[in-house]
């Protein structure tokens, strides 16, 4: 019942909004003027929308690849259960539990024009100060980096659990056969981790696609629209500019992306359950 009222009903309303004209003035009316797919064609004609779409794809690709590859490296480095490694793992998990508003604020300070990273750069004279968040050609990448940083502990944790599940004999056998570390990883470890890695990629794709918090805190989607992704654009259209209809249309498109990824996920987990 609760899911129906606060989960499914809002989605139906969202769809209805996306094919109507809705602003702050008539949001509470029961009937909205029906306009068919006008909102969608407005979007498809707008450069902001296509920029947000490109930004989203870049953003998701970066977050997923950095956090999964980095998470794999971290999982391998932290596999042994020695005290320093257990403490490092605990540090990572703690950072993962920090609210995004906290870690986003810290990174905004570190990356700000007068912040820590720039002071370090100017002290060592390697470069001019870099405007990580206020340079339109960099802001998207900076926020993506921080988002990957925030997702990496989760990836490391899941992959580490996966590594623990591999019988040690298989790797010892490879070592006896004279395989190098890299070859053992590539031909023995990685294939066994395949299902874990696939599920992880899907989960982090969805996570990155949903991302809103870090963008809001660090750049507000800017400068201009340089770090605006689809969910951020949806929010901005609706609540900053008051175009609930356009925001809803962006949201519907974003929802379709998620649905496709989710379907992929359900198939993956299903196949594993049967295997």
């Amino acid at each position: 019942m609760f899911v129906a009222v606060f989960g499914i009903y809002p989605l139906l309303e969202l769809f209805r909004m996306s094919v109507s004209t809705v602003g702050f003035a008539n949001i509470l009316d029961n009937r909205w003027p029906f306009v068919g797919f006008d909102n969608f064609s407005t979007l498809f004609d707008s450069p902001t929308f296509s920029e947000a779409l490109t930004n989203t794809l870049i953003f998701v690709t970066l977050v997923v690849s950095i956090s999964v590859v980095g998470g794999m490296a971290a999982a391998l480095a932290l596999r042994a259960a020695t005290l320093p490694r257990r403490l490092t793992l605990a540090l990572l998990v703690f950072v993962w539990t920090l609210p995004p508003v906290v870690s986003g604020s810290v990174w905004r300070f570190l990356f700000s024009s007068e912040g820590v990273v720039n002071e370090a750069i100017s002290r060592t004279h390697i470069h001019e100060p870099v405007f990580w968040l206020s340079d339109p050609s960099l802001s998207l990448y900076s926020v993506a980096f921080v988002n990957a940083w925030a997702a990496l502990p989760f990836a490391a944790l899941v992959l580490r659990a996966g590594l623990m599940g591999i019988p040690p004999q298989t790797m010892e056998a490879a070592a006896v056969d004279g395989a190098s570390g890299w070859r053992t990883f590539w031909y023995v470890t990685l294939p066994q981790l395949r299902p874990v890695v696939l599920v992880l990629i899907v989960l982090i794709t969805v996570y990155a696609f949903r991302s809103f918090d870090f963008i809001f805190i660090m750049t507000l989607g800017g400068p201009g629209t340089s770090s605006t992704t689809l969910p951020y654009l949806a929010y901005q259209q609706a609540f900053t500019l008051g175009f609930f209809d356009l925001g809803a249309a962006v949201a519907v498109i974003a929802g379709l992306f998620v649905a496709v990824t989710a379907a992929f996920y359900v198939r993956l987990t299903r196949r594993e359950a049967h295997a």
Partner: protein
Amino acid sequence: MIGARGQRDVFGRVGVVVLVLLYGVPLVYLIATSLKNRVQIFDAPASLLFHPTFSSYESVISSDLARAAANTAIIAFGTTALILVLGTPAAYWLSRNRSFLATVAVASLILLQMVPQATTVIPLFKVMALFGLIGQLLSVILADASLLLPFAVILLRPFFDAVPAELEEAASIDGASRFRVLTRIALPLVRNGLLTVGTLVWIIAWGEFLYAITFLTEEERLPLSALLARQISQFGTDWGPLMALAVLIALPVLVVFVLTERRLREGLVLGAER
């Protein structure tokens, strides 16, 4: 071999150092900056040798802050309670029922769990306005619960799967009602699951700010997270007080983390395996 024991594990050692730097340094600067005054931050933001001062904390701590903290606590505990009350029977039912309907329900929960928050906030604003809840903490609790309920149910269900059905059958033969079977037999056995899910939900609700800044119109209703999010995204320059506020938001999370670290780790891994 990568990550092997013994002397040759250079990769592992380098990895530990890199990770400690990447994840430790931001925390160090979070705390250091909160203990500097404005001049110290302006002159040498990267310096870690300084005379600590509590001036930032003094400027942040006020009765307004206490009210915001109370709002945060109401939202976090309210959401957790609501989720456990609604999610437990739902997870139980989905665990015991393998019909087509239950399969469809699980699939749609997975789907719902993945819908971006920034998109659900748009129609939820209308729903909350319809119920006259805009501006009230209850709207944030309901919205947070709707955001996290699918996740909670999916995470809880396998814990119920592990409860042997024979145990429950024996109880119902003895004449116990469905409700009694759930509360007296199954619930004590899934205590760990409830604690894990409760902790995760609490942590997320504690830091959530999007619903809060959207639904809560008056300043005095805002939780801590929304206060920080608004100040940093709009004026973010007075770093000392901002970092002090961030530390204060993080402290309760640290306490919960220390109390539940092990369980949390297992819960996270389990969540990914669902």
